[in-house]
């Protein structure tokens, strides 16, 4: 919408601009408020070309080696949920941020911010789980930190992990790399992590068989890279869901993205929960899925490689990159009409009725 005429109307705005003077939960939602915060506060403060790429990881050159470096904090509540826990998530989140840059993850740090009063047994279970997730992913936790805060100053346990990996020669993935004609691939059904967590929330509990999809994706990425076909960009659609990931790519590559509603796999339990709660699964978080933008000529082979991997068995071609509506994601609905898939302002809110 960059080339719209400037509004000439002078309207007095009686409604408070809700997000300028206080940090709200919505600033952490991965939607528009998060994007505003990064653009207006963080980017100007730390401006440098590596950060300016705004990918899930920084890629730095060091003695001829390309290192991928990333960090992520985990504040999930409850600490244990169907399909995983905060420890596994802390490994997978950071490993995946590295993997989305095409990197082979190598080392992690783990910092624990613990609220006093947390049962030692809980901490032990989380640490055990973090250790086994790291082992399965083939990464080592090589440094760490511990802080304990007063009761009421934390929410049980927060974990931060940072990670380092090496990007193989010839691999160059970035959210600004999508070009018209490219295909959009999705590795599997969406919305499982978000619904698994939501089902456990105080005040919203419902019976659900949905388990989080949390998983380390670097082996799937390696399998895709091994096809030798050009991959422009990878994103794991975590908070903010598929919609946020696609909108980020569309904005940074200055292209339109057109997706097919029918081609987006959603498990019935997840769809049912979303219908019941009035949520759109396109905005619900995933922790073990990826979106790939690939050149059209290699799309079929990359798809085949994904489907041959256990974490990509239900992979689909879900759309194409276009030169119409740059910066917008549109979707052909099940009725054959077209609608926008917008970035949400803040968190998706349960509707009244």
């Amino acid at each position: 919408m960059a080339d719209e005429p400037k509004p000439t109307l002078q309207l007095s705005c009686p409604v408070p601009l809700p997000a300028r003077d206080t940090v709200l939960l919505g600033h952490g939602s991965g939607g528009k408020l998060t994007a505003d915060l990064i653009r207006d506060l963080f980017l100007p403060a730390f401006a440098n070309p590596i950060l300016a790429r705004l990918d899930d990881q920084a890629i730095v050159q060091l003695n001829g080696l390309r290192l991928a470096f990333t960090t992520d904090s985990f504040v999930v509540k409850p600490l244990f949920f169907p399909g995983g826990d905060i420890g596994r998530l802390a490994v997978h989140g950071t490993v995946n941020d590295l993997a989305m840059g095409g990197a082979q993850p190598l080392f992690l740090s783990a910092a624990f911010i613990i609220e006093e009063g947390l049962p030692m047994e809980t901490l032990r279970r989380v640490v055990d789980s973090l250790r086994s997730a790291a082992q399965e992913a083939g990464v080592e936790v090589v440094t760490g930190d511990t802080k304990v805060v007063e009761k009421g100053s934390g929410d049980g346990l927060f974990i931060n992990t940072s990670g380092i990996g090496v990007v193989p020669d010839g691999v160059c993935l970035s959210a600004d790399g999508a070009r018209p004609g490219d295909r959009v691939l999705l590795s599997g059904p969406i919305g499982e992590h978000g619904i698994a967590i939501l089902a456990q929330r105080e005040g919203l509990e419902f019976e659900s068989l949905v388990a989080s999809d949390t998983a380390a994706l670097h082996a799937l990425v390696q399998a895709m890279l091994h096809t030798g076909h050009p991959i422009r960009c990878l994103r794991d659609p975590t908070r903010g869901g598929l919609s946020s990931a696609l909108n980020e790519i569309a904005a940074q590559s200055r292209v339109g993205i057109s997706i097919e509603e029918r081609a987006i796999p959603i498990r019935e339990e997840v769809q049912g929960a979303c219908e019941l709660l009035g949520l759109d699964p396109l905005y619900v978080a995933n922790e073990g899925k990826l979106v790939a933008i690939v050149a059209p000529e290699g799309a079929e082979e990359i798809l085949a490689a994904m489907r041959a991997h256990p974490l990509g068995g239900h992979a689909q071609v879900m759309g194409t990159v276009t030169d119409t509506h740059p910066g917008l994601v549109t979707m052909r609905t099940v009725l054959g009409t077209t609608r926008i898939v917008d970035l949400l302002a803040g968190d998706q809110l349960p509707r009244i009725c």
Partner: protein
Amino acid sequence: MKYIDEYRDERIARALVAEIRQRVTRTWMLMEICGGQTHTIMRYGLDELLPSQVQLVHGPGCPVCVTPLETIDHAIAIASRPEVTFVSYGDMLRVPGSRSDLFRVKAAGGDVRVVYSPVEALKMARAMPKRRVVFFGIGFETTAPANAMAVWQAKREGLMNFSMLASHVLVPPAIRLLLRSPHNRVQGFIAPGHVCTVMGYRQYEALAREFGVPIVVGGFEPLDLLEAIHMLVEQLEEGRAEVENQYVRSVSYAGNLPAQRIMEEVYEVCDRKWRGIGPIPQSGLRLRPEYAAFDAEAVFGLGESSVEEPAACISAEVLQGLKKPVDCPAFAQLCSPEHPLGAPMVSPEGACAAYYQYRRHAVSM
């Protein structure tokens, strides 16, 4: 998914649209009342499928949109008190009052919680006897019975730390107001299926008779709405003005009688101000005097107050179907979901927000 996919079938949708196209001989202006129906129309691009003679305008049935500023301000005042746990449906949190919203109250340390059911608020009141738990009871006839049940149960249990800030609104008086307006251009209504699931559709017969306007009770899936539109077009082309029920899998003529009984027990009808529209006589529900001990307005002594509605946006005309969101010069320019100038841009079910979220690529701006 069973019971969902059937109502989103492209083949049947196109067949229904073809029938509407064949039947329609002139322009008809139709209004869906409920924000949930507006949401479906925009999300599935039903306006894109319909022939140009079928014009849809969007009604006042978004409870978040029409809750008056004064009530939001009261909610904010109550939620800001240190001894209060304020419990609300999710989409009320972002709605701006005259100076703040509930998200900001939460950010400033207020105990504001989101639930799907008032029963959760009751649980909180039982679990935290030293906190004063206040439930924000808003909505149309759809949410009214469950909210009434919570108050009834609180009284029965003597749960004196529970109260409800009630601001319920009723659909038929709003339709009457629209039809009485000299500017009215709506020729047929899709009545709200969830409201009618509770209330039945007897109430709508007087409206159809008195104003000679056809009314079809409609559901919320794309095929429900296309079928309801088809039924309205048939009536209009045949010169009939009856109440018909498209949403037969949920709505009966008499509605849900136990739900109506609990509403009757707990609430009384009152005049109510609608945000963006103004006062509508006999269009609201408030707690009966017997339940005053559970009425947050009384418990917290908030009294009457009046706040001027912002004059900048055209929400009054949008909510009455006189204009479409895209007719507003501020739409998607000065007014967006992040910086709403008026109520229909605030809730995802508001007509302006639905246009903005799903359809702004298709309208020239």
